[in-house]
C-alpha cells in the first residue's frame, strides 16, 4: 500500500497558505468582534473600524503610502477592474488611448478588451525575449491622446520584474496615468510609492500569506487621481467601492502585509538560495531552458522548459509535486501559454514549461526531492518521445513539415 501523502507544494504564485499567525488574528473578528465597521453608534462598530484602519496602515506601510490612499476590494482582479475602468471612464474626455503589454494577467487583458468594446483604443506592447517591456517601445507607444498605461510589477508566470520606476517617469512626464498590478510583488520586492511615479496599484492578500477574497487598490492623492466607481451602494471607502467591509479578511491582509514587511529581507535571501539550488539541480538535465530574465526576477520563481517533453504528461509524471504548467492542456483550452509565446518561445518549448514557485514553507528537502524526481521522470518521458529520438539522431525539427491538426 502506498502511503497517502500530500504533494510538495511548489505553486506559491498560484496562492499561498494563510500564515498561521494571520489566521489566528482573524478568528476573533468572525465570532467576537463581529461589528460592522460602518456602525457609528456603538462599540462593536468602533472596534471593527479601528481594526480596519490599523490594517489599512499596515498595508500602506509595506508600500510606503498614506493609508488614506488605500481602498479595500475583493482582490487584485477587482482592483484591476476598478483602476482601469474607473480611470478610463473618468478621463475619457481627455483621450481614448490606453497602453498595456501582452504578458499581463487576464484580469488586465480582459478588462482592456472590455474597454475596447466601450470605444477605447488599446495598444498591447510586445515584450523582449527576456520578458521585459522595452522602455523605447513603451515611450514610442505614448500618444497625445493616451490617458492610462498598465504594466504589472512582477509577472505571474515567469516572475520577471518590470522597470516600474522608469515607466512611471515616462508616464508622469506626459500626464499619463500609470497603473501597476502588484499582486505578485508584495513581500517579494521593495515597493516605495513615495518614490515611484505610480498612480494606481493593485494588491492581493492571498499571494502574500493572507486570506483569499480580499485585496486593495492604491489611489494616489497627490497628484490626485479620480475614478468612476464600479460598485455602487452605501458609499463605503469614500465612494470608490461600496459594500460592507469584511473585517476579518481585512485584518488578515493587514497582518500578512505587516509580516511581509518585517520578514521580507530574510525570507528573500532564504528563498533565493532554494531557487538557486533548484536551478542548479535542473541544469544537470540536457535541453532545459529558463524562461524570462534571471536577474530582473523575484527569487521565488523558476519557469523552465524541458525540451521534447509535453507539459501535461510531465505534470502527470511528477504528481508528487504541486506545480503549474505553461501548457494549457491542463486548462480548458489547448493553447500553450500566451506569456511564453510572447517571449518568442517556439511551440515545443512553450508546451513543455513548468512554473516552480517557492515560498515561506518550502524546505531544502523539498527542493532535493523535486530535482531527483524530475531527473528520473524527464528521462522516462524522453524515452517515449519521438521528438527526443529525432533530436538524438541530429534531425532539425524545424525542417519537418508537420501536419497540424
Amino acid at each position, binding site marked *: 500500500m502506498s502511503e497517502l501523502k500530500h504533494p510538495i507544494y511548489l505553486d506559491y504564485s498560484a496562492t499561498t497558505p494563510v500564515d498561521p499567525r494571520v489566521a489566528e488574528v482573524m478568528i476573533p473578528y468572525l465570532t467576537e468582534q463581529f461589528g460592522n465597521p460602518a456602525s457609528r453608534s456603538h462599540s462593536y462598530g468602533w472596534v471593527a473600524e479601528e481594526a480596519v484602519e490599523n490594517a489599512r496602515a499596515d498595508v500602506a506601510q509595506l508600500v510606503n503610502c498614506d493609508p488614506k490612499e488605500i481602498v479595500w476590494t475583493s482582490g487584485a482582479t477587482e482592483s484591476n477592474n476598478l483602476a482601469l475602468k474607473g480611470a478610463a471612464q473618468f478621463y475619457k474626455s481627455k483621450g481614448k488611448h490606453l497602453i498595456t503589454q501582452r504578458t499581463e494577467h487576464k484580469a488586465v487583458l480582459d478588462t482592456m478588451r472590455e474597454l475596447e468594446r466601450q470605444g477605447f483604443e488599446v495598444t498591447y506592447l510586445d515584450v523582449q525575449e527576456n520578458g521585459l517591456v522595452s522602455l523605447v517601445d513603451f515611450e514610442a507607444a505614448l500618444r497625445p491622446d493616451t490617458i492610462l498605461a498598465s504594466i504589472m510589477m512582477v509577472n505571474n508566470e515567469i516572475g520577471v520584474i518590470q522597470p516600474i520606476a522608469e515607466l512611471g517617469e515616462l508616464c508622469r512626464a506626459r500626464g499619463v496615468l500609470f497603473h501597476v498590478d502588484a499582486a505578485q510583488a508584495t513581500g517579494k520586492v521593495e515597493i516605495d510609492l513615495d518614490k515611484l511615479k505610480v498612480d494606481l496599484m493593485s494588491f492581493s492578500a492571498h499571494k502574500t500569506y493572507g486570506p483569499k477574497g480580499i485585496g486593495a487598490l492604491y489611489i494616489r492623492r497627490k497628484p490626485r487621481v479620480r475614478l468612476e466607481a464600479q460598485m455602487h451602494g452605501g458609499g463605503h471607502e469614500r465612494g470608490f467601492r461600496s459594500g460592507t467591509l469584511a473585517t476579518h479578511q481585512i485584518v488578515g491582509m493587514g497582518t500578512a502585509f505587516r509580516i511581509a514587511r518585517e520578514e521580507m529581507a530574510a525570507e528573500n535571501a532564504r528563498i533565493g538560495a532554494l531557487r538557486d539550488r533548484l536551478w542548479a539541480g535542473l541544469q544537470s538535465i540536457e535541453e532545459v531552458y529558463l524562461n524570462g530574465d534571471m536577474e530582473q526576477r523575484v527569487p521565488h520563481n523558476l519557469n523552465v522548459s524541458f525540451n521534447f*517533453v509535453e507539459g501535461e504528461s510531465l505534470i*502527470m509524471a511528477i504528481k508528487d509535486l504541486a506545480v503549474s504548467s505553461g501548457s494549457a492542456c491542463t486548462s480548458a483550452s489547448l493553447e500553450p501559454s500566451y506569456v511564453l509565446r510572447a517571449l518568442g518561445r517556439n511551440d515545443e518549448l512553450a508546451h513543455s514549461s513548468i512554473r516552480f514557485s517557492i515560498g515561506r514553507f518550502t524546505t531544502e528537502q523539498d527542493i532535493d526531492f523535486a530535482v531527483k524526481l524530475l531527473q528520473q521522470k524527464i528521462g522516462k518521458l524522453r524515452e517515449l518521445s519521438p521528438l527526443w529520438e529525432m533530436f538524438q539522431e541530429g534531425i532539425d525539427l524545424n525542417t519537418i513539415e508537420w*501536419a497540424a*491538426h
Partner: protein
Amino acid sequence: MAYSDKLMDHYENPRNVGAFDKGDESVGTGMVGAPACGDVMKLQIKVNEEGVIEDAKFKTYGCGSAIASSSLVTEWVKGKSLDEALAIKNTEIAEELALPPVKIHCSILAEDAIKAAVADYKQKHAK
C-alpha cells in the same frame, strides 16, 4: 484532470515503447500530429509475409491521453491484418480509455497513426 484506471495504467506502464528500423521492408512507419499542437505520435508496425501485423512499437510526445491512446493501439493492432487494423475506430479507443471530451482528439490521432503506418507499409510494397 481525472483519468480512468485503464488510461493511467497505459500512461504509467506504456506497452511496446521503442522503434524499428524505418528502412526495413517489413516495417511501416506513421508519424502524425505536430509539436505546435502539443502532440506527435510515431507508430510502427512490423508485418509478416502473410500480411499480418506481428509486432508494433510507438513513441509519443503528448499529454497522458495521447500516450495511453498510442500504447493501446500497439496492443490492438498486433495479430491483425492490415485491413483489420484500418478498421479500428477512434471511438473504440476513446471508449476503452474513457477519454474526457477535451481529449477525444488524442484517439483521432491514434487512429490516424494506424492509417499512416499502414499507408507507409503499402507504399513500400506497391509494385
